[in-house]
């Protein structure tokens, strides 16, 4: 009971933990998917924004080039004004320069190392906004000069900038250069605080913004989960700028502690409820089983009682002639005395004293016959067994009264040695009489079968310690060694007309009242059966005084 209880609690705990783990795993996966989705959406938004802005750069460059070149080229002062207004409106366009690549190779498109060296000093600043806000374009002279006219070239720069360059249409040798501040490609409110944002140009870093609220960066679950990553080349700007977004997977973000805790409590309650229900069911099943067992036991006992009764009724038949004899005696006495009394009454001077005396004795005799009949009726009765403290001497006397005549007829002497200590046991008197009757009958059959002269059966009652004993012994041939172990086995019999139920029934009836029955042979030959029962008065005094002698 305790074992199964602790087992069921262990099971409950395991169930709870499993539910918790499942929930945690599910939460983590769901969170990860959510975070990755968020990253993807944000990444696309940022990509679109940057791409739009790149397109704007393109548009500004195109319009500025158009402004500065051609037949009706605007004066440089006007160009500057436009440049300034662009610069003002678009802080990310940190530097705008119009340069002349004169002295450089133009039109042929052939660039040589010598050409570049020649043109090293060949970049002439025409207009720049802000003044001196740019850099020396000399190193880029060759690269820009090699660009196709009308196409934007993207060039690396320092300080988080990159350069966009576009040559004016031929025959102009001018080129427009934008210095773009990568950090300003996005407004501060546009960039996600939780992502690591990078912009690279040909693998060279333009912008590196680590996540601001990178909470559990240290506890990242990266080894177990692929951290969400987004990268896409910005449209425009020569398809050279790569936007990449990374998001760390901090445990906190993945595991919603609060809901996990809530779930733990709920799951715990659910497990407890489940365990409780299971235990209730187990208890119900157990009690049902106990009830079934009790029912089976009751049924078995009922059958045993039935068998015991049938066996008694059967035995009654065997005893009938002996009992008839027992009844004949008082009847004979009553008849004779009645006839005598009638004769006395018919005399001239009836002797009333003698008549009364005769009738008194008759009454006594009739009662004696009545007792015998009652004994017989009781023995054959189908009453449910009712164990109660009974004097064993009385039980022995009753069965002796029933069997004495039969034994006498068979020439078997019955010796009684009833203990003065008045052994008592909690038994059903009739069933115990039946047990004794079986033993007496077996002994008598053995004695008769062996043709023993001076055949004797002795019945002894005694108290031995806390036990009350009844012994039934005979001076017959004893029990053969090969029979002894099988003696109490149902349906084992050595008698030609025996059922083999007598001794097995005896055992059942004795064990029913917490007793035991043993068989053996006496040293001098002859069988001895010993019935041992708990001595009732010993038990009684024990319970009253609460102590027992050693």
């Amino acid at each position, binding site marked *: 009971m305790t074992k199964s209880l602790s087992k069921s609690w262990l099971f409950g705990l395991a169930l709870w933990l499993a539910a918790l783990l499942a929930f945690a795993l599910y939460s983590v996966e769901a969170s990860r998917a959510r975070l990755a989705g968020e990253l993807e959406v944000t990444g696309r938004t940022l990509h679109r924004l940057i791409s739009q802005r790149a397109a704007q750069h393109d548009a500004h460059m195109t319009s500025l080039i158009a402004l500065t070149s051609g037949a009706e080229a605007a004066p440089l002062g006007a160009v500057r004004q436009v440049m300034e207004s662009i610069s003002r409106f678009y802080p990310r366009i940190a530097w705008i320069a119009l340069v002349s690549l004169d002295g450089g190779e133009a039109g042929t498109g052939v660039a040589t190392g010598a050409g570049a060296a020649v043109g090293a000093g060949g970049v002439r600043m025409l207009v720049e906004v802000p003044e001196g806000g740019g850099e020396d374009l000399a190193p880029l002279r060759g690269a820009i000069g090699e660009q196709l006219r009308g196409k934007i070239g993207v060039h690396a720069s320092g300080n988080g900038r990159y350069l966009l360059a576009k040559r004016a249409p031929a025959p102009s040798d001018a080129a427009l250069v934008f210095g773009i501040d990568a950090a300003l490609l996005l407004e501060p409110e546009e960039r996600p605080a939780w992502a690591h944002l990078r912009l690279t140009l040909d693998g060279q870093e333009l912008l590196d913004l680590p996540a601001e609220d990178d909470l559990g960066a240290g506890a990242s679950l990266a080894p177990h989960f692929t951290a969400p990553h987004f990268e896409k080349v910005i449209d425009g700007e020569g398809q050279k700028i790569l936007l990449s977004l990374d998001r760390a997977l901090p445990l906190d973000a993945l595991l919603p502690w609060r809901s996990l805790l809530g779930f733990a409590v709920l799951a715990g309650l659910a497990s407890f409820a489940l365990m409780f229900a299971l235990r209730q069911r187990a208890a119900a099943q157990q009690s049902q089983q106990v009830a079934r067992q009790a029912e089976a036991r009751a049924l078995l006992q009922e059958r045993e009682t039935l068998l015991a009764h049938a066996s008694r009724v059967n035995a009654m038949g065997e005893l009938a*002639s002996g009992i*008839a*004899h027992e009844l*004949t*005696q*008082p*009847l*004979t*006495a*009553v*008849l*004779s*005395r009645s*006839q*005598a009394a009638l*004769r*006395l009454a018919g*005399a*001239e*001077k009836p*002797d009333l004293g003698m008549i009364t005396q*005769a009738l008194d*004795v008759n009454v006594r*005799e009739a009662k*004696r016959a009545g007792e015998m009949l009652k004994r017989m009726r009781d023995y054959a009765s189908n009453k449910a067994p009712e164990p109660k403290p009974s004097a064993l001497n009385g039980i022995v006397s009753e069965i002796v009264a029933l069997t004495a005549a039969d034994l*006498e*007829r068979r020439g078997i*002497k019955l010796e009684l040695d009833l203990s003065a200590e008045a052994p008592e046991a909690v038994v059903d008197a009739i069933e115990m009489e039946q047990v004794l009757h079986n033993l007496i009958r077996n002994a008598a059959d053995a004695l008769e079968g062996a043709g023993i002269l001076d055949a004797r059966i002795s019945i002894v009652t005694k108290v031995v310690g806390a036990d009350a004993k009844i012994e039934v012994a005979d001076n017959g041939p004893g029990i053969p060694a090969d029979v002894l172990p099988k003696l109490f086995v149902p349906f084992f019999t050595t008698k030609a007309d025996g059922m083999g139920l007598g001794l097995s029934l005896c055992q059942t009836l004795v064990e029913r009242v917490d007793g035991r029955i043993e068989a053996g042979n006496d040293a001098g030959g002859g069988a001895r059966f010993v019935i041992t029962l708990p001595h009732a008065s010993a038990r009684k005094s024990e319970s009253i005084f609460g102590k027992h002698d050693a």
Partner: protein
Amino acid sequence: MRVRRTRGAPGGEGMSRYQVYLIDDDEAVREAIAFLLGTYGIDVESFGEPKTFLAHVDEAKPGVLVVDLRMPEVSGLQLYQRLAERGIDWPTVMITGHGDVAACRRAFKAGIQDFLTKPVDGEVLVEALQQGFSSLDARLEKREARALLARLTEREREVLDMVARGWASKEVAAALEVSVRTIDAHRAKIAEKLGTSSVAEFVRLTLQEK
């Protein structure tokens, strides 16, 4: 107190010159039967077991035995046989609780006079006892006759038998080839020994002897 003597009741017929010996292991039965027989004026001596009776029995006091067939140790039939071994063949009425044909047959073969089943009807029992008494009377007479006749010499017995057949002295003398005087002397001797000279008495004695 295994032996009990019951006197016939004063109002009884006093019909019995003999004892009734009642041997039954059941005390109630003994008392009741003795009481009943007492009302018929029959003296009853009761014994609880055959052993006691065997120790007590006196050949000089003949009586009728009423014996229970089934008793521990010694059965009624065994008792009867043991008494017979001792030359006591008094009339015996066997009473039994079992109307067992085989036991009844054995009893009659052994010479039991009557076999009654319990419970025994008083009149039937008394009738059986009366037959027993008559039988005892007859035995007594026979014994007396034999005792008387045993006094005679061989020659006297020869003469008596012829006289009892109705022969006259002359015919007897002729048959024995002696003188009539001699026969008369024999007859005088016979009359003296038997205490009678009546031919009718002689006839009765010789018949009783058988």
